């Protein structure tokens, strides 16, 4: 077993159960601390955290900023509109620049799969993937797991339905890896045009166990027995590419409203990584139902999970180990 601390967080795939459980435990502590108002403002003193966002995302960027500041790091955010990326500078030029600045923790969001892996090969900082194309978004899967744990007390044995545009979703991929690793069953529900090829074979394989991922095109079947219903954002661009004919047809068959939610278990949680398209993939009546929706809590857990990740990687960071 590899006991060397992890230097980067690029993907859920490839992580071990013990790494994931340790992060979730630590994040649970941070969630409690955050609620109590006590924070450890000196833990990352002297560390520099740069948020490098090649793709707009107020939510994730703010969450990482807050996480870094609560731990006492110097936090800087660079977004594409104000950086030299627009002037033809390549990703690797940016890496060289960041190396010269002696950044310790680098949070990267990019529209192309593998961008975080590429940066991780070239920078000295610990790289945290905040979403790369349609590949992975590991901290989202961790915060989703933490949210589920707080409500259900376990992941093992649960059925989680992930609904919508699986094909273009890094959130779905990271969740498939993480939930199956923790012995949940995953139902993927959506139109056939938005279900990627051979997706059933993704997910964690533990010895002889077959991967527990099943595909459905019908919400009634896909939501049957679900303890959690996780909705994904449906982008207008998919309709322009004819992957689905219209928003209203999509909502009719795959949008989550009170009626479709009845297919799931009566105590099923409703989740969404945000930002929501109300009336496209989710009805406001469900999204805002305090009995069912934990969407706001996901945001809260996001900060706690990112604090746990920054804490863990900073302890393993090369620069400060010297």
């Amino acid at each position: 077993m590899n006991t060397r601390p992890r230097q980067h967080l690029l993907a859920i795939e490839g992580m071990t159960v013990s790494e994931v459980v340790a992060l979730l435990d630590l994040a649970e502590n941070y969630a409690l601390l955050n609620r109590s108002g006590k924070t450890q403002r000196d833990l990352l003193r002297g560390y520099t955290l740069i948020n490098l966002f090649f793709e707009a995302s107020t939510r994730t960027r703010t969450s990482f900023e807050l996480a870094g500041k609560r731990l006492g790091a110097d936090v800087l955010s660079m977004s594409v509109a104000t950086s030299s990326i627009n002037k033809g500078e390549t990703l690797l030029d940016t890496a060289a620049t960041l190396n010269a600045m002696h950044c310790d923790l680098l949070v990267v969001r990019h529209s192309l799969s593998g961008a975080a892996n590429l940066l991780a090969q070239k920078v000295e900082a610990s790289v945290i993937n905040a979403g790369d194309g349609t590949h992975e978004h590991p901290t989202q899967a961790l915060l989703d797991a933490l949210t589920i744990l707080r409500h259900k007390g376990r992941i093992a044995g649960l059925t989680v339905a992930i609904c919508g545009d699986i094909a273009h979703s890094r959130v779905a991929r990271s969740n498939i890896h993480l939930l199956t690793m923790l012995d949940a069953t995953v139902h993927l529900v959506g139109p056939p045009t938005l279900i990627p090829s051979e997706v059933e074979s993704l997910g964690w394989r533990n010895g002889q166990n077959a991967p527990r991922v099943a595909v459905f095109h019908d919400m009634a079947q896909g939501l049957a027995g679900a303890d959690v219903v996780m909705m994904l954002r449906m982008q207008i661009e998919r309709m322009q590419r004819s992957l689905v004919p219209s928003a209203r047809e999509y909502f009719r068959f795959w949008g989550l409203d009170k009626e479709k939610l009845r297919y799931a278990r009566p105590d099923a949680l409703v989740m969404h990584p945000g930002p929501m398209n109300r009336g496209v993939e989710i009805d406001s009546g469900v999204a805002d139902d305090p009995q069912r929706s934990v969407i706001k809590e996901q945001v809260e857990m996001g900060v706690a999970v990112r604090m746990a990740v920054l804490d863990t990687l900073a302890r393993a960071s090369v620069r400060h180990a010297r």
Partner: protein
Amino acid sequence: MPADLLFTGARLLDPSSGLDQPGELLVRDGLIFDRGQGLGRPEGAEVVECHGAVLCPGLVDMRAALGEPGFEYRETIDSAASAAVAGGITTLAALPDTKPAIDDPALVHFLHRQAEATGRLTILPYGALTRGCRGEELAEIGLLHEAGAVLFSDGARAVASARLMRIALSYARAFGARVVEHPEEPTLAEGGHATEGELATRLGLEGIPACAETIMVARDIRLAKLTGGAVHFAHISTAEALDLIRAAKAEGLRVSCDTAPPYFAFTEEAIGDFRTYAKFSPPLRCEADRAAVAAALADGTIDAIVSDHQPRDADDKRLPFAQAAPGGAGLATLLSASLIEVHKGTLPLAKAIALLTVQPARLLGSEAGTLSPGKPADLCLFDPEQPWLVEAGALPGKAQNTPFDGQVLKGKVLGTWKRGRRVYP
């Protein structure tokens, strides 16, 4: 007048005549004068003792992109010649999708002259099938053919319009010209970077279904049948496409195809964690397809092994996978990589050399690729057992984007001769 050149102690391997025996070969005035045993030693002859290494015709590569004109930062004709002769290649067909595209007779002459200037390599230019290789209107196939273009293609681009392909196949018959297709249905392939399936899904890469190849091959075979034209499919990579080609050949249609070493040496797993040096067009496939390509080398369905040389520099490759340019450097490794199948025991050595010499030469209408007396002494001497380490950065030529980086390949070119003159090493 140059001195005679006598190769002794060679294993003479010439698939064009079925020759495979120990012996000697005599070169006079740049031509093969005689071959066999007990040739004697003409006075003043320079002797090359081969120590049992294989002496075969200089390789004939029927598909390579050179970068010149238009992409000289990737490769020039002179730098490509250095890589080619190091790989035992003495004749090479250069793709037309340069900048400008080879759609004017003057550009065909330009390529001939540039190759002549290297003194090491014969270039047989492809002509553009359509103007600018844009797939819209037919290029001047007749005039290009007259100028010396040997094959017609839009290079790395498939002919999207079935109507235009029909016209091209039909019209080219007037000149006995062969049309070469990049068989990939473009609307299915658009935006894709890897073969559709588990790996592409896992990495979050937009996939290209393997049937994009089958569909184009099926379409063009029927158009060849309709028109009586000759179609050649480049870099075939799937079992299904090979089945269609095998059936079309059995039916007597004028259909041929080639493949390149990546398609029998690697599977899609080579892209691993977004390794852009293993990004190809068409993309690498699954193991069943790889095995089918290897089997089709031996059973005669595939007519030639090509380098499919696509020079790229670091800036083209060190990018997120979706942005990285597809293609690999293939000239210097063509022979060694082809020998992988020989060493596995799935392909006889003589068949491998046929796929690299006389078979592509026939498709090109060239008299190269033979050790017959009277023909130019284009020769390749190699040791099929000698291992060497492929290192990106240490290859001859400009392009270093080899997918074999870090691998030890068995089989090394010891020397290359062009018209009797040593051009490598």
